[in-house]
């Protein structure tokens, strides 16, 4: 079974996000007055091949996030796993 993994990382709540702040200023100056907050994060797609069980994929992705894809000191991560057809 092959899997498509979609991963998002962003700075933890309470940690000032300089990029989000700058984007918010930009949106406000475009006239979007109702914009209250903006967070800029990262998005990654990973294809994983030949693993039958979803739990095993999940465990592997958790490990990837903790070790490399996110920095647990400052970032949160979340992901979704989709079975790939054929």
């Amino acid at each position: 079974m092959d899997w498509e993994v979609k991963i998002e990382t962003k700075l933890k709540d309470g940690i000032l996000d300089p990029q989000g702040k700058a984007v918010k200023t930009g949106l406000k100056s475009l006239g979007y007055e109702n914009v209250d907050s903006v967070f800029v994060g990262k998005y990654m797609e990973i294809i994983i091949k030949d693993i039958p069980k979803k739990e095993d994929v999940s465990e592997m992705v958790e490990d990837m996030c903790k070790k490399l894809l996110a920095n647990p000191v400052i970032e949160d991560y979340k992901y979704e796993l989709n079975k790939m057809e054929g």
Partner: protein
Amino acid sequence: MKAGVVTFPGSNCDHDVYNVLSKIFGFDTDLIWHQKHHLKDYDLLVLPGGFSYGDYLRSGAIARFAKIMDPVIDFALADGLVLGICNGFQILLESNLLPGAMKVNDNLKFVCKNVRLEVNNNKTTFTNHYRENEIIEMPVAHGEGNYYIDKKGLNSLIDNNQIVLRYASKSENPNGSVENIAGISNKKGNILGLMPHPERCSEDIISPGRSDGYRLFSSIAAGLKAGGEQIG
């Protein structure tokens, strides 16, 4: 005195450090390619500045898993002297050899200029040739030097006197780092990470009248010589 300077793909200050260590201080210095698995016997290892692996993902995140990092981490945990400058500091953070993490600079700019620093701890192997609270000047050049650590971690750094260098004031702080932190050590004091570049202000021909980086390396060299005499 033997020193090793690790070269990652994208390191660009490795030769500057090599020059200072070998030509000015007489270290027997090797440039070590990141794909090596083993280290020779060194008295000092330096992770130099630059943009290892293009700073992709996060600064230092991918370099941390270079083959050479296993023996570097073993060396550091066995109390070997390790100096991380700029990108080297970021790699030390990603390796958990030093606590905390780097964020993008608050003003989102790449800052490249001389800044004034305060020597907050002059009792370390790396800074004992400075006076306590001395104001010195060094160049910085980085886009991700906004040091972050949570409150508990910060208190631990303060309690253990691990904040070695601070930007001299809030207005001098080029990146928004907490407590104006520019450089920290581990608890034992054998690992130092700093954003400023001492290797760029260690000789008159490169930085006329500004040689405050010299004393960081002279502190290390003097400590090693003294240690050598005791043992020998």
